[in-house]
């Protein structure tokens, strides 16, 4: 067992998969000698050389388009988009191409590219280094969307993603990149894609969260416990395909749901969760669903701490559902 951060977990997963499979190739801006601006690809260049760890020209559509071509041919490309805020020049390649090859070719062509990209706020990066773009991609059929919330999952899910036959968008919560270290087994393991995890068992209300918001949900539950309310935290881990079963099971037990995300509220991922619960479990609900989310504004620089959901804000929502 080693104590590692999410950055190290990502780095270890890449090293192990590149060692295991010669077809795995990493490409992106500054991923080579520099080891990535967040250090996620540190040492890879030295270990695997110029041909498998490629510093690309500054073009995101170029990075993803090239990754698609490599993967169609049989390589396993793991491109990095330096910040998810810069993914948009590649939107066409991702949504029209990457996600559609299998379907449009009747299963003849597949390109299981794994796009790694840091997302989310909490680093004083202003609008263009803080956004949470998940729903643009969860709305795109053909893409798997994964968001780990700790080092164990980051490593296990990334390894699973690299071995997956489908294209995966792997969103890394950069606020907690170097958050408290966590014990992670040294041996090879994967975390199954498509399975949520209960991080805290409770009976009174459910909070759904993913990425950096999981620790906020946990902190809010601690505060709620002081009021005698016992919350359950469901870490979604994979957004698509969603583990609906775990969601329904949890709300069936608690009868109350607070959803938590840092992305803007309107048409956010939580809206989908609310709709699913409304469709499939409205009869077990004892209070209206509450969504805690970022505001429907661009992500600010100075007032980031006002923008980002925090435990007290979640507690307010918990109080509303508990006292309904």
């Amino acid at each position: 067992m080693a104590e590692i951060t999410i950055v190290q977990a990502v780095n270890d997963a890449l090293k192990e998969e590149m060692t295991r499979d010669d077809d795995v190739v990493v490409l992106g801006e500054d991923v080579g000698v520099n080891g990535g601006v967040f250090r996620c690809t540190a040492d890879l260049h030295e270990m695997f050389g110029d041909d498998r760890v490629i510093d690309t020209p500054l073009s995101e559509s170029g990075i993803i388009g090239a990754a698609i071509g490599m993967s169609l041919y049989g390589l396993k490309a793991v491109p990095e988009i330096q910040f998810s805020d810069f993914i948009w020049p590649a939107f066409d390649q991702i949504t029209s191409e990457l996600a559609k090859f299998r379907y449009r070719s009747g299963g003849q062509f597949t390109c299981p590219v794994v796009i790694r990209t840091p997302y989310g706020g909490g680093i004083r990066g202003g609008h263009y280094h803080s956004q949470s773009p998940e729903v643009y991609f969860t709305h795109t059929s053909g893409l798997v969307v994964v968001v780990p919330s700790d080092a164990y999952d980051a490593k296990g899910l990334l390894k699973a993603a690299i071995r997956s036959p489908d294209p995966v968008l792997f969103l890394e919560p950069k606020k907690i990149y170097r958050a408290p270290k966590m014990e992670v087994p040294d041996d090879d393991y994967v975390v199954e894609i498509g399975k949520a995890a209960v991080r805290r068992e409770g009976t009174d209300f459910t909070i759904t969260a993913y990425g950096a918001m999981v620790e906020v949900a946990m902190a809010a539950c601690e505060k709620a416990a002081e009021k005698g309310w016992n919350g359950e935290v469901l870490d979604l881990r994979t957004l698509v395909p969603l583990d609906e079963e775990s969601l329904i099971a949890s709300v069936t037990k608690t009868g109350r749901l607070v959803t938590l995300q840092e992305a803007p509220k309107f048409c956010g991922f939580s809206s989908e969760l609310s709709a699913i619960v409304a469709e499939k479990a409205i009869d077990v609900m004892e209070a209206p669903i509450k969504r805690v989310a970022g505001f429907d504004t661009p992500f600010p620089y100075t007032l980031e701490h006002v923008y980002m959901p925090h435990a007290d804000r979640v507690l307010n929502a918990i109080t509303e559902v508990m006292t309904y």
Partner: protein
Amino acid sequence: MTATEMLQIIGESGQTVGDHETDLTPDELVAMYEAMVRTRGLDERMINLQRQGRIGFYVPSTGEEAAQVGSGTVLLKDDWLYPSYRMPGTLLMRGVPLRDMIANCYGNEADNCFGRQMPVHYSFAKQNIVSISSPIGTHIIQATGTAMAQKLRGTKEITAAFFGDGGTSSNDFHSGLNFAGVWKVPCLFICSNNQWAISVPIEKQTASETLAQKAVAYGMPGVRVDGNDVLAVYKAVKEAAELARSGGGPSLLELMTYRRGPHSSSDDPTRYRGNQADEWLTRDPILRFRKYLERQDLWTDKKEKEATERIKNECNALVKEIEKLPNPTTESLFTDVYANVPPHLREQYKHLVETEGEGHEPDPDAAFPL
């Protein structure tokens, strides 16, 4: 000049190279030099403030002052600028108050953008300086659009877009130059080739021998200039501007320079380029121009000292005043998203103030890692 030769007027030791004569008066030359010193002075102060944790982030332009000032001297008051984040010198020359630039880096109540963007992402509509955005290259095609509008309106104005060597790989570099060539618009595409895009060296950015020669494919002139030679930059930009103003269409200029410092306050270049920057310390654009002026008795140690002191004092006084000011209001989170605040945002703002008042103290652990 061709797209592969390099225009130079002042040599490393301040001597005039070749038979280039400058049309600038002694006063203008001195003003240009002072602008370079001001740029360096502002940079040094801001880097310092960042190191002390008093501002969150900064992008130094040390070593690229000639490119900024040479271009800044040419552009006229009504021309439009789409700047990059690494050119405070040009902005100062356009008459942007130093106070407004420092205020932007503090992102507090004094900032004309209400702390909505990171430091160095300026917006100065009064000076026709278009809001800087982080995504690389996006503004290049926008500049073409503005230049087309200028052409359609029949003005004598021109537009200039500034970007780095990395920016030439962006999709919008291609669209920008392609559209501009086809439309024959009055636009200058000014690339500061500082040879690095964060850790990616120019050889990995392009296999093209020069960036200037890319102009050929877009049907416009491409000129390669010694970007550390302020008079060469001035001459090349001036000729391109005259061409554009007289209906001759766009140009691409490649200003050869070097990013002496880190990419930003969050970058550690020793990880990827050792001490390569050291050799560029001796090729300082300010030093070179100073030697040129000294040869003509236009500059002295005393003037140097006064100029450096002046910018230092100006910065210090402004920092002292701005630093005391409070954050932007919570309300400013919700304004300017649309022309009018729509009902759902009004509701979110109201709920926020009712439940949390004016917000919390900043997160002391948050720091920008790039």
